[in-house]
């Protein structure tokens, strides 16, 4: 029972390693370093990296910008709540508002074009989850997060909230269209 007794040899740190341990430590260390370097590598050569760009702002200032974009590029309204559908030009700044318990407005983008999509919450934390593409980003109040997104395939996508935000969390779902 020696793992629960003091080591029998007092100078245990001079005990030589067995090959099984030495070899495994070597292999594991190399693997750990490979995993570490994959992250910087992907920043240089990969195409999916979460943007570092974020700005401190207030809900009022953010909402104002979102409303300006909606006023300029609205193409139609959907559902009984008349949620505006916005079709912004490629390369432009698009504001998506997360609040209890809806996403606003609905975005209509074009495949192969890039957009600067802003994400911010008006109240609590929310989770931006684009399905079935499976891109998941945390949405904070007070932090305007700017991601440059390039949709690749046309279709109708869903944005659901995947950060628990209270009793109606499960009703917080919207659409994103790619033409």
């Amino acid at each position: 029972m020696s793992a629960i007794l003091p080591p029998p040899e007092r100078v245990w740190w001079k005990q030589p390693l067995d090959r099984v341990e030495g070899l495994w430590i070597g292999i594991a260390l190399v693997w750990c370093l490979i995993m570490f370097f994959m992250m910087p590598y992907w920043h240089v050569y990969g195409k999916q990296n979460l943007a570092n760009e974020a700005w401190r702002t207030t809900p009022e200032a953010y909402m104002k910008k979102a409303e300006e974009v909606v006023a300029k590029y609205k193409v139609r309204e959907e559902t009984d709540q008349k949620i505006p559908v916005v079709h912004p030009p490629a390369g432009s700044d698009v504001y998506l508002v997360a609040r209890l318990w809806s996403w606003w407005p609905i975005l209509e983008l074009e495949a192969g074009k890039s957009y600067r999509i802003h994400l911010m919450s008006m109240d609590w934390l929310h989770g931006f989850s684009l399905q079935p593409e499976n891109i998941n980003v945390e949405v904070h109040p007070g932090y305007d997060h700017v991601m440059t997104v390039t949709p690749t395939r046309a279709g109708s996508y869903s944005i659901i909230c995947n950060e628990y935000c209270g009793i109606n969390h499960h009703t917080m779902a919207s659409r994103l269209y790619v033409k």
Partner: protein
Amino acid sequence: MAVNRMFRTCPASGLVFHEPAENLMKANAVAAAVSLLVGGILAIGVTLTRWQAVHMLPPDSFYLFLTAHGLNMLVFWIIFFEMAILYFTSSTLLKCRLAAPGIGWVAFWMMVVGALMNNYAVFRGDSSVMFTAYAPMGAHPTFYLGLILFAVGALISCFVFFATLVVAKSEKTYNGSVPLVTFGAITAAIIAVFTIASGAIILVPTFLWSVGFIDHIDSLVYRTVFWAFGHSSQQINVSAHVAVWYAIAAIVFGAKPLSEKVSRTAFFLYICFLQLASAHHLLADPGLTSNWKIFNTSYAMYLAVLASMVHGLTVPGSIEVAQRQKGYTNGLFEWLRKAPWGNPAFSGMFLSLIGFGFLGGISGVMMGTEQLNLLIHNTLYVPGHFHATVVVGTTLAFMSLTYFLIPVLFRRQMMFAGMAPWQPYVFGLGMMGVSLFLMGAGTLGVPRRHWDIAFAGNPLPYEFPGSAWLMMALAGISSIFAFVGGAMYLAITVGSVFFGKKIETPGFKEISAQQGMVGRPQPAAAPADTTVIAGHQGGVGAGGMCMVAPGTFVLAIVFLVSFVLYYFINWKYLSTVWPLR
């Protein structure tokens, strides 16, 4: 005040128990079991609601149950049990009197009151904020106050543990260095101090905010500091259950560590780097740079992952060496085939090791990779991962330790002795199923903490693929197995502790020890322990190389291959997602 120096020696195991330490261990273990019972009952409500075909609870009760389940399991069950482990590894393993048992009791009652107060807040119905309680979503002030009380109690217990180490050293109750298991417990306690300090830094202001003394808590600051508490608390578990693995290998097999140097260095790496993993939770957050994320999420180049991979080899490796010494030397795996699979202490520990490594470890590193996190952030993949680490890993390891403790600590014969050998399989395999299916659902995008993935009542619902619904159903079915396994565990332990036949040893009496020293210290080297590993006879040739534990090495390579494949499959998956920058 006279110091209580009453000790007893367990006739079966030879372990020495200090009377006040023993009582504290029992109290903490019982409080842990009660928390497990409450958390387990709540788990049924959670899983049967997420299984869409059953969809048992309305949303308010669902979120309430989920909050209470998380807190009772992740915090109360595990930390109460860890306190018992701290007292065991200090007082019992070092044959030392417990320093300041009175303060230990103050700590215990603070933890009990804290746990009750927190549960009161949740069951009021206005604090369904989950374990994470992300500000600016607010809970009732007693929610935070309960957690703070509990954490301070735990912190005081840690200091009783440290003080006991000091007493043991100064009263010379052991020779040389502390046992490896105690070393692992020291690791856990050091991480606990860091964890609880972080918890205080964020929970105290949040409490003040909830009563109106502070008017704003920043959501990003909250998440960053909270996870230094929330994730690090799970790293206490890792250190503690790895120590339990070593302890069970020693108790069941008489296994000695392959090398003290390697195992202790691996624990030391935990102290240095494990807490950095808290940053895993912030990979999809704005306002933090990629440099910060990469350094921290790799735990400074994955040095803590390295440590876990080392423990994953040395624990079964030490068992293999011990088994080969007993003559199980045929082929690569006779030592494993002939292991006592009917002994729940062993089978639970081994399932814990396998589940923690293959399911919890690999998935944890995958989702802790900066870019890959985008694929699964806040999906059910996350609970899938931590049910493999905290439930299959920690909980099952703690359960297997109790099978050893019932006769030794509680001095009772096991009740339902015919059922006990099955318990680790029912619970462990059920919970592995839960983990796997939740991860499967998460990979398909199913969100965590979500009452209804059918989005009933929403004009723009998302229709999850049928496979996601199937995964949820399978997770629900597996959770029933796990629940039965948990109920078996509680029936066996509670039954034995309160109604089991008392173990009476003729001639047994408590002994009073002088100056904390009990009997004689162990001789410097027992004959069985003198075998030098490097010159050990039991090794067989594996590919022309002589190793002491070739079977374990093969298992480790199987693990590595699964790890590498799964890791790169996810990069492949990520490369098909919309470009983002």
